[in-house]
């Protein structure tokens, strides 16, 4: 929420997404937009510019590829899987088109093995996404990285279905 507010202040924008009081977090903001037709209309308007990634409203458009905020990984791997390339590209293009926007990548691991190694693995995953985004035109200064290792699982559970959802990098704006 603080990031979104700062974003608004920095740009002096009066975008509906920013002024929306329900922008508790990025998840809530997305839900808010999907509630009625207005959100979609707004998004189309802002997306009409030359920049393919669209303006800031694209961040809150549930139909935008930017609405995908998590990519997942194979076990003990930081390679970006083919099915998530589109997501990484969309976020990279968005940052390239909006050079004043900063965001962070949060890397995570599943619970298997040792905790400190997993902390390192989470960081490597976030770095792998960052590297790809910089190659695609985002500035390294726009992207900060944090790793939580296995300390903050998205899903509780001790089986592959939980683990596969915990090996991830989250895009936080």
């Amino acid at each position, binding site marked *: 929420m603080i990031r979104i507010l700062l974003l608004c202040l920095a740009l002096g924008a009066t975008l509906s997404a920013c002024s929306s009081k329900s922008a508790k977090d990025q998840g809530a903001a997305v839900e808010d937009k999907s509630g009625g037709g207005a959100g979609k209309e707004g998004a189309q308007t802002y997306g009409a510019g030359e920049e393919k990634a669209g303006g800031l409203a694209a961040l809150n458009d549930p139909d935008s590829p930017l609405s995908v905020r998590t990519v997942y990984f194979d076990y003990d791997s930081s390679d970006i899987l083919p099915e998530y390339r589109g997501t990484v590209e969309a976020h990279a293009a968005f940052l390239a088109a909006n050079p004043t926007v900063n965001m962070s990548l949060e890397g995570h691991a599943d619970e298997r*093995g040792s905790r400190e190694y997993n*902390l390192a693995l989470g960081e490597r995953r976030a770095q792998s996404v960052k590297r790809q985004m910089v190659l695609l035109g985002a500035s390294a200064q726009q992207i900060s990285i944090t790793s939580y290792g296995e300390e903050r699982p998205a899903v509780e559970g001790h089986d592959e279905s939980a683990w596969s959802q915990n090996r991830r990098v989250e895009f936080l704006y």
Partner: protein
Amino acid sequence: MPEPRKIIALLVFLLLPGAARPALDIRITEGMEQALPIAVVPFGWDGEADVLPLDMHVTIANDLARSGHFAPMDDQDMPQRPREFSQINLADWRKLGMESLVIGNIRATGEGNFEVEFRLVDTYRGTQLAGFKIPAPYKQMRRTAHRISDIIFEKLTGVRGAFDTRIAYITVKKTPKGKRYSLQIADADGFNAQVLLDSGEPLMSPAWSPDGRQLAYVSFEAKNSAVWIQDVLTGKREKIAANPGINSAPAWSPDGTKLALTLSKEGDPEIFVLHLSGRSLQRITNDRSIDTEPVWSPDGSRLAFTSDRGGGPQIYEVGAQGGSPRRLTFDGPYNARPRFSPDGASLALVHGAERQYRIGLLSVKQGYLELLSKSRLDESPSFAPNGSMILYTTTTSMGTELAAVSVDGRVHQRLAMQDGEVREPAWGPFLSSP
């Protein structure tokens, strides 16, 4: 010398958790087939029963039973309750197969202080193997019991006891407002639990200073990993490392003057040594892979650590001043998080193979790896200071708790919390000199 007020605060703390219930309930899940029979006779006491803070002989018998090496006799099976050596009817005990007998007396010495006298008797030879008088202030009665257990254990097994020690660990509790993490310490028998830090953000990797007075740990309270050092007695703490990237895996040098840790401030996780006086930082590893989880050899000359420079995570060793690392593990695709045994001859580690993560014991010279634990999600091994047991974290469908295994793999224990998760145990150093 700490200030008087701080001492009072500690004493109150030691009193509060009460003698009745331990924070960690420790159970033997698998004992030795030939545990030594021993009788710990109720100690003589001429005062009111409720004046004493604990049943001395019960605490001692529980210590000995928990080790897996002893099978203490039930009170009601005892043929007599002698208080003095001269009162012992040796033949009666021998008939019951009780080779070892512990008797004792507690005396009030005034001002809430006591003196505990005990004797360890060999009933076959009719001799006294050990006999001590130990002064015991009221608040120290539990520690006195553990010291007596240490002496008995050493006399009968030849190995120094580790009952008068403490463990640190991380607990996680779910609340309506989210998870709460806490760094706690407790006596090795699970009693006297104290919270040293409570946080809404994850805590990791507690590590005792060699003198047992400080704990280093990792906290995410600033939304990124940072390494802190906290004084156990006063609770005073200091942030030691909070660079961009990872700040983690603290490990004290055996002389307590340095902290090895993992920092990724230069791009990828590398091992550094921080000199605590003067705060100078020395880089030890230099490789584009993950290097983390350093631990000092007991003589302080080497560091073992986890690295995936060869593909998957394996254990390497490097001189404490740096140099080229030598790979130590070759068995299986995943070996991580090493901990040296007190004699430096072996490393406890996490061994992953065929979807099982177990605690393994590697003989450093021979390179032979033996698996000690039996579950599928075991991690964070920590040696008892006498090298006899390894404490670790185990996760099952029931949740996450602590377990311990003897280095010969024969004794298995479970340490469960009454509610919530407990993980990342760190067994502290000996509290008193031998």
